[in-house]
């Protein structure tokens, strides 16, 4: 057993860090959870800087613009990026869509779409969720009807991250309403500039317009936009892809915030001649966060270790989801409690400590806990697969 990165991996971390020092402003404090036009533009510029290193999709096969990075190298890469709070753009394309095209796309589709992703030119959004479909995605109602060389799309998607910035959307729609619900769905690649596509932002708590509703009013998609076989879209959409490594090493950002919080507690007076971090309640609260962080990190490393050996993590991955979601929420609450009124401020004002990061995290995590399966669902998976308890 080995609990240390190799010298090569540490060297690679140094390389990424050196690049980041160069590519990001010297006073860079990190991307915000809330995306606005300016930060989005900055993110796209940053993508262009990553492209020459082939670091946009480093896990992809070399022939499609990647580096075939190992799982452990990807952890190193993600940790460095996360700790630097580097901008995050186009993750859906890198993590889901690209690998899906590689697997199911024809040569034309590969040639048309993959280079745009690895060059940082084309940004995608994901059109899966619909209103009221809840966690039963397959009950989707958006229709695509064949019409000559085209499909005509009508319906609506919701929770579409960054739809208002995206150039293209990968979208699933019902192409056979009479088939059983999983068997009448197809998978399309759609240009967001196609007439009939309209985007309405959903204003969420984090003050950002991260989520959108997207409406389709007789949107015409050429048949070349169909990915894989007709009516097999559900199976394409739900394929587990080995290229999805964006979550690995995700606790690096949490660690940085905890370090910030500790520095805050060191700098601030406790109102009684000492510093905030002298207070036992503050010490214990921060120590408990550190324990949770450490636990989350160990759990991720274990999953990576499994993946690196070609095993498919099952409930082990669910465990991480439960823990890390809980950790981020706890960190936000504990942090706001320690920071007092100042913690609630955000923006660039002189009083906004840590740039309001904890406040933003507090509101941003409301969505996180739900997206990707609620905690309850994860627990059920563990109870069933891990412990053999009966299904409900």
């Amino acid at each position, binding site marked *: 057993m080995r609990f240390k990165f190799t010298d090569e991996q540490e060297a690679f971390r140094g390389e990424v860090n050196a690049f980041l020092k160069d590519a990001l402003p010297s006073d860079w404090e990190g991307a915000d959870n809330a995306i606005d036009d300016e930060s989005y533009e900055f993110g796209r510029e940053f993508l262009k800087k990553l492209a020459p290193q082939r670091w946009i999709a480093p896990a992809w096969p070399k022939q499609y613009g990647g580096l075939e990075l190992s799982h452990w190298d990807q952890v190193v890469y993600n940790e460095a990026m996360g700790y630097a709070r580097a901008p995050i753009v186009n993750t859906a394309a890198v993590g889901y869509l690209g690998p899906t095209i590689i697997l199911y796309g024809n040569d034309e589709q590969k040639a048309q779409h993959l280079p745009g992703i690895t060059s940082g030119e084309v940004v995608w959004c994901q059109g899966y969720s619909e*209103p009221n479909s809840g966690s039963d995605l397959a009950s989707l109602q958006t229709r695509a009807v064949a019409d000559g060389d085209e499909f005509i799309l009508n319906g609506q998607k919701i929770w579409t991250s960054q739809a208002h910035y995206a150039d293209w959307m990968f979208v699933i729609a019902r192409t056979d309403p009479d088939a059983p619900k999983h068997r009448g769905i197809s998978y399309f690649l759609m240009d967001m500039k196609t007439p009939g596509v309209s985007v309405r932002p959903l204003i*969420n708590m984090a003050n950002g317009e991260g989520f959108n509703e997207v409406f389709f009013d007789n949107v015409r998609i050429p048949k070349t936009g169909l990915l894989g076989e007709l009516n097999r879209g559900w199976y394409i959409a739900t394929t587990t892809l080995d290229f999805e490594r964006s979550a690995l090493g995700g606790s690096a950002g949490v660690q940085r915030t905890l370090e910030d919080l500790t520095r805050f507690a060191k700098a601030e*007076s406790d109102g009684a001649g000492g510093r905030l971090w002298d207070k036992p309640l503050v010490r214990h609260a921060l120590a408990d966060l550190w324990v949770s962080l450490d636990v989350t990190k160990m759990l991720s490393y274990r999953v990576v270790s499994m993946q690196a050996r070609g095993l498919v993590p099952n409930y082990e991955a669910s465990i991480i989801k439960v823990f890390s979601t809980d950790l981020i929420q706890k960190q936000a609450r504990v942090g706001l409690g320690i920071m007092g009124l100042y913690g609630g*401020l*955000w923006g660039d004002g002189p009083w906004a400590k840590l740039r309001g990061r904890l406040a933003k995290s507090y509101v941003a995590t409301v969505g996180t806990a739900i997206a990707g399966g*609620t905690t309850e669902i994860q627990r059920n998976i563990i109870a069933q697969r891990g412990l053999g308890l009966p299904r409900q």
Partner: protein
Amino acid sequence: MDFRDSPEDAAFRQEVRDFLRTELPHDLRAADDAILGVGIGEDERERDWLKTLAKRGWVAPAWPKAYGGAGLSVMQQFVFNEEMARAAAPRPNFLAIGLAGPTIIVHGTEEQKREHLSGILSGENFWCQGFSEPGAGSDLASLQTRAVEDGDDYIINGQKIWTSGAHRSQRMMLLARTEADAPKHKGISYFLLNMQSPGITVRPLTNMADTPSFNEVFFDNVRVPKSDMLGELNRGWYVATTTLDFERSGIINGVSLQRLVHELAAFVRERKDVRDDVGLESVRHELADRAIEAEISIVLSYRVVTMQTKGIVPNQEASITKLFGSELAQRIARTGVKLGGLYGQLRQGSPRAPLNGRLDALYRIAIGSTLAGGTSEIQRGVIAQRGLGMPRG
């Protein structure tokens, strides 16, 4: 011991309830206000509602009748506030009605009363509270803003922070140091500052709760006439304690929280997809816990108001009520956004936001409620000291 309204209180409760049922337009009912605590603003229809309240003297029901109030007893005020919350009725602005007015009634000259009280009662004049300063923390009396005598005026220089509603206020309850060398509690005076005076800059503090927004207020050689001093020179701290007493005696109104829990239950009853997503049993138990706690919050506030009615000062009883209520608000908010699923994170104003976005609002505000008016830590200190007989920590 008796947990029932007295016959008189019960009759009064019925009177308020009947009034609200017949007089309050249905579409003005929204629990937002009770949670946000903003109070009636410039909205035309809300201003009409204020006039309806005024006819009964119920804009400032606690004020003496001589000054336009209803002279209600402590218990009647509580009953009134409960029924307003239950009906989700828009309420007059607390800073003006609950703090500025009563302080002026106690300490003001006849001229000051004449000048300010009617503007407060009509809802025309908003007030803000200029007590806190950066760096002072919970030790308000260590304030640094200076007021220097100059002819018929004082000249103010300095800064306030956490000033809710300063951007729309006509007046500020301002504390400033008028005697630099005196012990810190003895060199402070209390001014009724006109916010239109030259030299005042209001800068919003962008914060996650958004409403009621916090501000910083800067004073650069601001002139305030001597006639706007409330109480005696250098005795301002004693006037301020009156304001702070009114602020502290505010009782967390468990009814608003209970209403929210019941709205959440209704939301869950209607939305099958929500129940499926979080698992029915979890939903049941979590909501049941919140319902229990809301009832407790109500019972605890009854006790405090009963003590006040008898002229007893609630000590640890008030701290318990506040601690429990504010932490409960956080729990309800968390339960709420969790049950709301992805929809729970939508902002007020978003058409798809459940419960008209009240979940969002409460979630963002509730985290601050354990800080405002004495952090949970301070409340626990009071309980350890007064309830358990421990020495000061």
